[in-house]
């Protein structure tokens, strides 16, 4: 690492999804932990190539859904049967059937907030700044290039060995990124 400037990581550019995937498998097998792949679109199979576990977003959505359904049922029971009872034709003050449609909608509403909120939380977004976003060449990830970046904070990181690994994986353009 340089003395004057702090470095974020080693960025390697690739031209095709298959090359990127092969490189990801090499980095995974070499035992790195603080690294990531950057692609213009999600690549099918990349999670396996990186050794990522199944995303946990589902739990947030599930929790949202349960909260929504419970909120709907309790709200309708409390407002129409307890706080201000509205007797209609001798029917029961509260019926889960009549309360179902609004509760169903609230299940979906809260479940959707759970999915989006969970995704943002797990991804630690919104984030206003990232070292890679300052990097001139990295803007091509929004166009048609693919990148693998191994962070300097990784316990296994070594400027020479990591560079050699990425070179052997087929990258023709490797750069150190400033933090």
């Amino acid at each position: 690492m340089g003395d004057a400037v702090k470095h974020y990581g080693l960025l390697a550019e690739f031209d095709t999804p298959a090359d990127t995937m092969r490189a990801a498998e090499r980095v995974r097998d070499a035992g790195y932990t603080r690294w990531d792949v950057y692609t213009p679109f999600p690549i099918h199979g990349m999670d396996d190539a990186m050794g990522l576990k199944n995303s946990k977003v589902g739990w947030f959505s599930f929790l949202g859904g349960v909260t929504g359904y419970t909120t709907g049922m309790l709200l309708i029971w409390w407002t129409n049967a307890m706080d201000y009872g509205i007797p209609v034709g001798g029917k029961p003050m509260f019926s889960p059937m009549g309360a179902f449609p609004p509760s169903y909608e609230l299940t979906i509403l809260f479940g959707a907030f759970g999915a989006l909120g969970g995704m943002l939380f797990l991804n630690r977004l919104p984030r206003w700044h990232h070292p890679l976003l300052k990097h001139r060449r990295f803007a091509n990830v929004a166009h048609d290039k693919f990148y693998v970046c191994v962070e300097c904070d990784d316990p296994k990181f070594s400027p020479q060995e990591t560079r050699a690994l990425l070179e052997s994986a087929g990258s023709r353009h490797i750069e150190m990124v400033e933090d």
Partner: protein
Amino acid sequence: MSHAPTSTAVNIQAPPAELEREPLVANQRSLGWVTDRIAGVCEGKAPLWWWCALIPSFLLFLVGVTCVAYLISTGVGVWGLNHPIAWAWDITNFVWWIGIGHAGTLISAILFLLRQKWRTAVNRAAEAMTIFAVMCAGLYPLIHVGRTWLGWWLLPIPNANGIWPQFRSPLEWDVFAVSTYFTVSLLFWYMGLVPDLAVMRDRAKTWTRKFLYGVFALGWNFSNRHWSNYEKAYLLLAGLSTPLVLSVHSIVSFDFAVSQLPGWHTTIFPPYFVAGAVFSGFGMVLTLLVPLRTICKLEDIITVRHVDLMCKVTLTTGTIVGYAYGMEFFIAYYGGNPYELEAFKYRATGTYWWAYWAMISCNVIFPQLFWFKWFRTNMFAVFVLSIIVNIGMWFERFVIIATTLAREFMPSNWGYFIPTWVDIWTYLGTMGMFMTLFLLFMRYLPMIAICEVKGVTPQADPHHPLGGAKPGGHH
């Protein structure tokens, strides 16, 4: 400012003969071309045609605003509705607009779950259409209540009267269905936009554009750890939107079906309304995208095959709607209820016969032309037929609402509805609002999902030779 595309390739090589199949992006366009072409629609100077479309739309919207202001300040009497036809154009337009929205969710959610990859070329614009259509729809019940400023009484918010909304009423269910539908559609649309906003941010040439796209892109940096959670959330939102879209128009149909009126009190209403909603929505998607694909030179992304497939969905749902019309008549006869039978005889042969037959010809007869490939692939024919579908579905809503209310059980309860100029201009005003919003959308946001379209090209597949896979190798 820092954008410097390293690849200027416009085309990629053709796939090997044995892998040849009809591609979703025509003419072997490269990833860079896809990005440039779609993002290019919202970059540079606004074209003349855009101003020529925006200015009249905006003026029409202002006329609508004036009509609504006149209505709120004077009262609902400025409309032509009366006793017994207390629901007229307002609820017709509400149901029509909200039905149009349904195609957007069908494309974005149901076709996603069914792995119909062609949806990626049209889902963004269709979702935007959903949101704007639901905004137009939501306006009508709000202004129809008369004292619009008390509209918040529909929500379970504690108020000085100490009473709560009546949750046994389908109209109250509707409040929850429509507001949830709007919110979830907006979330789904926005989440889909985040990576594309990051594309726009990285291409931005001015500070303002970089800042604004940057803020809404939330710092997206295309990381695969992010994509992993993103794709899961996208799948969940699609899974949640599917039962939602089916429930919304079912609940809208409950507004009618739960009442006791002949012609409304039928069990066929929920599926019949949902099919009609998807039908009308695809009509509107075609009306918008068929001209836009040519004007914006997007024919390689929204290909003739895409239009062909959407026409097939229109044909299918139109035929379902036709079946429902027939079944309504059969049950009216077979059910043995004289009021029900009279209601349907009145629909087809009574004072509103013209509306009924306009509906039948636009919704059942004309869409049958889509059986012929020539009609599905001729853009002018598709455009004309899509307009006919929009007109037909408006008549369907009108026929259901007006003919039933015009003939209630007793002759003293009979009437006829004639719209006033306020009815007409409010309706045209919502069209102006819809078009204004849509034109602003297609000018400032990528109207095709850039990242998703790139993801369905052969060069995006790591197991395809064009994606870099080596013959016989693992990838």
